[in-house]
């Protein structure tokens, strides 16, 4: 069995001028100065997005923070079927179901908590929902908070978004 030999592309030997560095350094300085001047003259071309005044426009399918949808009467559309929490690979959704005061609804979530610290924003909960009650179309990513508790979003917070 022949052993295959692979030729690795070696970098070209540097010429005398290049080994001296001096000229190359001047060239490099030219490049950086070029950027500097260009950016000073045409500031609008700098790609930086100045958050929070300016926000990146999220693509329509961007999976951001969750929100719970409401019925026309303002009650949550969620019927606490547990499909989202079952589908969730991060086990970040906690639901406690209860008997709804509205006899037409029957079952509703007494508690619906999403632990945003555990959520991996995979969107499987949205896929799983049979009632279109949970969406991830807020275009928001998790905001910073100073305690872990604040990042466990309760049903009221999720309904407001």
């Amino acid at each position, binding site marked *: 069995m022949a052993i295959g030999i692979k030729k690795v592309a070696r970098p070209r030997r540097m010429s005398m001028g290049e080994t001296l560095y001096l000229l190359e350094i001047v060239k490099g300085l030219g490049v950086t100065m070029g950027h500097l001047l260009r950016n000073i003259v045409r500031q609008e071309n700098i790609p930086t997005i100045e958050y929070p005044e300016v926000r990146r426009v999220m693509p329509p399918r961007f999976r951001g923070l969750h929100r719970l949808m409401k019925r026309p009467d303002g009650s949550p559309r969620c*019927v*606490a*079927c547990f499909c989202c929490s*079952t589908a969730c690979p991060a086990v970040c959704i906690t639901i406690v*179901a*209860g*008997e709804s005061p509205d*006899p037409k609804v029957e*079952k509703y979530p007494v508690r619906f908590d999403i632990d945003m610290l555990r959520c991996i924003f995979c969107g499987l909960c949205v896929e799983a929902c049979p009632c279109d009650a949970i969406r991830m179309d807020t275009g928001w990513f998790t905001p910073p908070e100073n305690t872990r508790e604040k990042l466990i979003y309760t049903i009221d917070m999720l309904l407001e978004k």
Partner: protein
Amino acid sequence: MPNFTINGISVDVPQGTTILEAAKTAGIEIPHYCYHPKLSVAGNCRMCLVEVEKFPKLQIACNTIVTDGMAVKTDSEKVKQAVTGVLEFLLIHHPIDCPICDQAGECGLQIYYMKYGLHKSRYAVEDKVHKKKVQDIGGQIILDAERCILCSRCIRFLQEVTGTGELEFFQRGDHSEISIFPGRPLDNRYTGNLADICPVGALTSKDFRFKCRVWLLRGARSICPGCANGCNVEAHFKEEILYRLKPRQNDEVNKTWMCDPGRLEYKKANEARLLTPVNRENGIPKAAPWEAALSSVAFRLWEMVEKHGPGSVAVIASPQFSNEELFLARKLADEVLRTPHLGFSLRTVGDGFADDFLIKADKNPNTRGAKLLGISEEKFDDIVQNVADGKIRALLVFGNGIADLSDAETGRLLANVPFVVQIATNEGAVSRAAHAILPSASFVERGGTFTNHAGRVQRFWMGFPPRGKARSAIEIITGLANRLGAGWKSGGEAQVFRAIAQSEAPFAGMSYESLGELGQTAGGKG
């Protein structure tokens, strides 16, 4: 013995077997709703249609007796079409309730739809006939008439098993529905079975309602600890919380049924549990690590035996504990503490209701076991008398309560003892008075055997490890005994049961293997 072929397989079955049952023995599944092995055959769901050679039309498998030379096909195109058609009919008025229906996940409609249906609905949602939903019809049952497929299992159960007949069909055609008679709710102690036998979500359990989705539950084979009948059950739990008990088929004990009070037994494993060893110092209970708790209890017991003699120590066993644990408790009392005071009582707080079906007056799962293991019931009153007289210096109490004593009586009684140790699962009057509490595992947190009223030794299996810091009583007793110098080998319940089989005559020749899932009757008299 008629011989017949089903899907080309030749099978011998006893005379009088239906095709459905015969197919089951051949490992072929025939879909069905109204058929139930423990109920009469109604044949009204039409799901079990099969093709029988020389019959012009399809036959229902549940009500066709196998004859010699019969040739049955369950997988022909004709059968498939018929079954799908029947399913479509059944689903015509079925509401789209799956997200809120407790049956979802174990629903016959869901299972068979995925297997035989998968059709698009040809019936507009707005044309569906609506019936009354969420009706509390008494017992443990909520009725949703809309979801019903009119299989009549519930009606037959109430007529044939309980004989009470509260449910009946009403109306005609599309508007047919099951219901109770006005003002006559379910009135028997076996209503929970209706939720089990209902193949759809029409009858669901009030207690389990919206608690948990069934696909999140895991099951453990167990024995209902509610009475001496020892019904075989499946304990359903998620993580460390028990959600429900469902009957497990054992034709010798409970067939496929279970009583309503038994179904609520699971709550004791969830609520008011003792989860950490406690040592009471100067009247203040303090959580202690196991090593320290066991050592200090052992030391106090040894101290009492040394100072006042073995007669100053008493052990009150409990028929709530398994054979293995009672055996070790007896050994502890007889061989390690050498006290003459070992007894138990089968009396419990409560009405002691009994009937001629499943519910027994004795509310302990293992009274017979305790008797067979030679733990005396007569000595119990003796011990109580001694305690009341202040002759007992240290008392080891198994179980959550003492016989049928009320909380106040228990407190008064235990006030006479300088040192009370309790091995139990739940808080109560004894745990409030005890000087040391050693928390033990509930019936799903450990394995073992119970001996029921008829002497049937039945196994129960561990579902999940003991909650909190609780330990199985076998470990606790062994730990105590070894700290008192017994030098027992620590092992699981299987090892202890082998020892029982060797030394105890009624259990001779038994092993976990021979008990199997359904149990075995112990010899001798208790």
